């Protein structure tokens, strides 16, 4: 708590740094950093084991983490005011890139997700949208009366569905849904009236039977497999059966690091990427899983505190939606690996081995840090 009660109207004019007697370093929140470093360290230990003690993998992940931290620090220096101004432009850019995929995208495994500028860069525009969409929605609600009326809800839904739809038809249902979710979270945090939500949910439920026939065979298969993995134990059900065995055989305290047979003998697929929580559960047991979830919980708690401290609608909504999106990633990943959700390609945040998704996460944390450090009042 800061002593001087200087009250400023939020939203107008450039923000400026405020020294509040609280430790900050390059606009980084020390608590969030601490939790972040704990999760990342824990993740590296698990990754080391998941990759059969292969230090090359660990080093590569360290390099990515370094890049991620760098990106986070850079973004944290940008005042929220600029972020607010840039949001619609970035959103527009993201949409253009998504559209560019159609003429210029590279097809991998039957879907176009990548844009390739030879020799320069190779990336998925959908990764950018993971941040640009919450930003544009937060911008949209920033100077509107909240809770929103029907018209802003409709407009924001369009803003949301446009990129989500483009991604779903790539096709990349998983990412499309995750992006729609992150946008939707902004809407909820902005005060979307419950009655709209009820109606929307009812609509989705009513159209669920129709959706069943719209989605592709392999997607239907994944849903069926979730309910009964044994229907194709060597094919579609293999991953989930093996990951459940891995988790279950870990017991209370696990088999010990590097001793998990399911992962080290390759019964567990994707053991260092999407299914890494199964390695953790097998080798460190229930204690390991709970520890990680506690760390995630602390992270979310801190993220929420930061959002509550934010001094304008834009910052609040952006910070809150990034935090909740993060928790959705955690839930979807662990839910999928433990067999209560269908298999979708969602990595475990900060722990799974992998590139772009990690950078996007850190960029998001950078946004949170920027919002948190460029303010004048501390409420919490």
């Amino acid at each position, binding site marked *: 708590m800061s002593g001087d009660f200087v009250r400023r*109207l*939020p*939203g107008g004019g450039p923000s400026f740094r405020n020294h509040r007697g609280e430790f900050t370093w390059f606009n980084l929140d020390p608590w969030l950093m601490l939790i972040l470093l704990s999760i990342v360290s824990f993740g590296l230990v698990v990754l080391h084991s998941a990759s059969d003690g292969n230090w090359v993998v660990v080093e590569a992940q360290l390099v990515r983490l370094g890049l991620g931290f760098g990106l986070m620090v850079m973004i944290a220096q940008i005042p929220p005011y600029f972020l607010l101004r840039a949001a619609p432009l970035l959103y527009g850019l993201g949409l253009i890139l998504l559209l560019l995929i159609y003429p210029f995208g590279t097809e991998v495994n039957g879907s176009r997700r990548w844009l390739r500028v030879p020799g320069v860069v190779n990336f998925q525009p959908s990764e950018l949208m993971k941040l640009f969409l919450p930003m544009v929605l937060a911008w949209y609600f920033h*100077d*509107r*009366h*909240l*809770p929103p009326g029907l018209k802003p809800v409709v407009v924001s839904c369009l803003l949301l569905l446009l990129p989500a739809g483009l991604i779903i038809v790539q096709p990349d249902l998983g990412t499309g849904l995750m992006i729609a979710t992150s946008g939707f*979270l902004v809407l*909820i*945090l*902005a*005060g979307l009236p419950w009655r709209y939500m009820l109606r929307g949910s009812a609509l989705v439920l009513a159209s669920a039977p129709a959706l069943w026939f719209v989605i592709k065979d392999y997607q239907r298969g994944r849903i069926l497999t979730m309910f009964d993995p044994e229907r194709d134990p060597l094919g579609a059900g293999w991953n989930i059966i*093996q990951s*459940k*065995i*891995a*988790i*279950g*055989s*870990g*017991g*209370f305290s696990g088999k010990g690091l590097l001793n998990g*047979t*399911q992962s080290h*003998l*390759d*019964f567990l697929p994707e053991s260092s990427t999407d299914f890494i929580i199964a390695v953790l*559960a097998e080798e460190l*047991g*229930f204690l390991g*899983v*709970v520890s990680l*979830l506690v760390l*995630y*919980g602390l992270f*979310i*708690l801190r993220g*929420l505190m930061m*959002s*509550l401290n934010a001094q304008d*609608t834009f910052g*609040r*909504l952006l910070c*809150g939606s990034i935090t*909740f999106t993060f*928790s959705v990633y*955690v*839930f979807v990943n*662990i*839910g999928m690996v*433990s*067999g*209560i959700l269908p298999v979708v390609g969602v990595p475990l945040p900060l722990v799974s081995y992998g590139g772009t998704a990690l950078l996007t996460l850190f960029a998001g944390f950078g946004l949170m840090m920027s919002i948190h450090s460029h303010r004048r009042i501390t409420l919490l």
Partner: protein
Amino acid sequence: MREALALKDHRSESQIYVERAATGAGVVLVLFSLLIFRVGYLQSVQYSDSVARSEKNRVQVVARPPVRGLILDRQGVLLAENRPSRNLEVIPEQIVNMQDTLLDLASVLEMSEAETARFRRLSGRTTRRFESAPVLFDLSDEQVARFEANRFRFPGISVQAKLVRNYPQGALMAHAVGSVRRINDQDTVSLNATAYASTDHIGKLGVERFYETELLGQVGYDRVEVNARGRMMRVLDGVKPINGQNLSLYLDAGLQAAADRALDGRRGAVVAIDPKTGGILTLLSRPAYDPNLFVQGISHRNYNALRTSIDAPLFNRAIQGQYQPGSTLKPFIGLIALGSSTITVSDSIEDPGWYQLPGNERLYRDWNWTKTNDGGHGHVNIEKALYRSCNVYFYDLAVRLGIDRLSQDLKQFGFGQVSVLDLPDADAGLLPSRAWKRASRNLPWYPGDTVNLGIGHGDILVTPLQMASAVAALANRGRWVAPRMAQNQPLEALARAQPSGAGQLPEHVWAPIIGGMEKVVHRGNQVYGENGTAWSYIGRDIEYRMAGKSGTAQVVAIEQGEVYEAAMIEERKRKHAWFIAFAPIEDPKIALAVLLENGGGGSEYAAPVAREIIDYYLLEGAGRQVPNVEMVSRQ
């Protein structure tokens, strides 16, 4: 902007946000609890089940086959050994496209059409995941090299070295030792799958079959850790296999070879027995086949050639060939007559050259009737009846003894039953009796049947092995020894009802019988019609005392119904030649029976074979030490 600003109510806005964030936090708490509950459920309720399943994933039990016991002759000569064979094995699960793989492989290894078909057939035979099936056997060095060079093209296929049976003596020992065959689908049903895990062969014939359990040994296993692709990572623990016992036979490979030389390519059988032990020294049946052909699976063409050959090489004449004994039965009938005091040594008859049953017009002629047309053997007692092989004497004797006593007492020499301890395929022959004839033909026993039996003709059938066993009892003056192949096997395990032998017969009955048989070989330089029947063929220069008896058996039927050349059929209508013998008389070391199919006269053709074999055993083989064969262990 201005309007919007005016409308914004920051207080209520942040109020809404706090509410929503709190709700969200609650939802996150619920969701995380759900995850913890789910993981906790898997790790507690499902714990033991998961541990079991992960162990089942990880640990595979790999059978380690025992090394099959060797088979050795009495000198330690290898009759059956194990040689390494490089086989091509395939793990069907690891092959993406069997058809393409097979085409590729066929061109790399230059596989024949038959091999390709066999590959296809065998590759479907595995019973568990990631188990490999052998599909091509005995790859040449070149094939192995070609495969290894192209190995990257064939995931799931590998060259594996295995031990397989080898019979270094080839056809010579085929009928004596038997052979193993590749285990097939029918075997799999009846076999103990554990005992034969990873063992590909099973004894199918002869000693290999009888001593299967001992030769097989006990399977061991390794518990190995495998990865998801079935690749072995390390051995956890296991039990070593116990290799099969080596089997020492009484067989004498040198003697067997000598017998083979003596047969000189003729069809027939030789069985020689050591009268002291009952050990079978020689068990030869010719023609034979190379048992190595069967080990890895014989081709249909080769098998059909063997199966349909008029010479029947697959047929084991020594233990399954059933022939009339002809005159070789006479010493035994003489023994029965003397033993029952039906005759005495001095009793004699006047042989006119023919015999007639009372009240019957049929003449039963002696064998020299057609040859010399000068009547019979004249004044004949039991000894002369043997060395001249007088038929009339034995016609008369058989009738006096009667069928009931004959069929009863011939049993004690093992006729009509299987007495060999460890040859599972031996046949029992046929010892006729009233009851048998009634049961099998629904006919009464005619006196004429008894007359025929007196000279070993008619219904009676014996195998060369039975004949040799009976001769061994004769050499032992009645003491029966159970014929057997293996030396180092306990007798009680081989229980089989044995004939009584004739040890109860008084001392005095043996002299005229053995004396008569001695004269068959040694009585010579007499006036015409007084020499032993075999003397002129084998007795002139013999260095030891041999007791023998020739025989000539009628051909019962031409085997099979196939169309053969007339000349061949003519040849196959000729009589079978027998010669039985033991030597030396004073201390018999070998008793044998020689049979030449369609060989002609017993003394002229079979006796020299017997002499050559016994010569080898007593003279060339004399002084040979019979080593006590220790277990030769070969890994």
